[in-house]
């Protein structure tokens, strides 16, 4: 019992520490957007090559770092980290309006994500397809966030050019 209590205390102090060192608005520098785009674009041809040569099913070795699993990790990590970095890189002028747009886009992205998730859970009966929901869940919030955020910024800039 005391061990559990100690563990809880440890977690609590660690959490406190994390909160104090966390900046209130942590974002990647703005050049990271291009890095993210590059990572995302690199993953597409890799996926295509994989599909055309059917690499997924050709490997026979098992274990955590079998070639197919390693390949899967590589492509998924490339895609997700690319999207992640694009989504959370700083704008050139990051002011409070951009911050507000970012938050509202993120909120809508989460709404959409959960709508897709819940629909998927209702409609999919086959157990094997649950992995696809997970895979979908990996990129849907980030992708929708990026699209919404970019669209809002585009609309903001367009209103500027018509008025001034």
């Amino acid at each position, binding site marked *: 019992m005391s061990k559990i209590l100690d563990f809880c205390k440890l977690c609590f102090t660690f959490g406190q520490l994390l909160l104090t060192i966390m900046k209130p608005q942590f974002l990647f520098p703005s050049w990271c957007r291009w890095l993210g785009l590059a990572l995302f674009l690199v993953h597409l041809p890799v996926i295509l090559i994989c599909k055309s040569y059917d690499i997924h099913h050709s490997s026979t070795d098992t274990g955590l770092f079998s070639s197919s699993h390693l390949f899967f990790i590589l492509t998924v990590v490339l895609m997700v980290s690319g999207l992640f970095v694009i989504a959370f890189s700083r704008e050139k*002028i990051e*002011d*409070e*309006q951009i911050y507000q747009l970012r938050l509202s886009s993120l909120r809508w992205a989460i709404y959409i994500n959960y709508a897709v998730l819940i629909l998927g859970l209702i409609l999919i009966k086959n157990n094997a397809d649950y992995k696809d929901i997970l895979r979908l869940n990996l990129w849907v919030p980030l992708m929708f966030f990026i699209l919404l955020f970019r669209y809002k910024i585009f609309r903001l*800039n367009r*209103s500027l050019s018509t*008025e001034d």
Partner: protein
Amino acid sequence: MKNTLRIERAIKNLTQAELAGLIDVSRQTINTIESNKYVPSTVLALKIARVFKKPVEEIFMLEEGD
């Protein structure tokens, strides 16, 4: 909330971009504040008031229904 930002800017002969540069925001933000599409935070309102050397109430005022 309405504001007299555009008038104050004309009096001081500042462009949107110049005002934006003075208070570290984008030109879009100044533009949307002027067209009443965006309500600035207290900090930003105070910064704008400081640029024009006027109290905040003279630049930003409540409308009926606020």
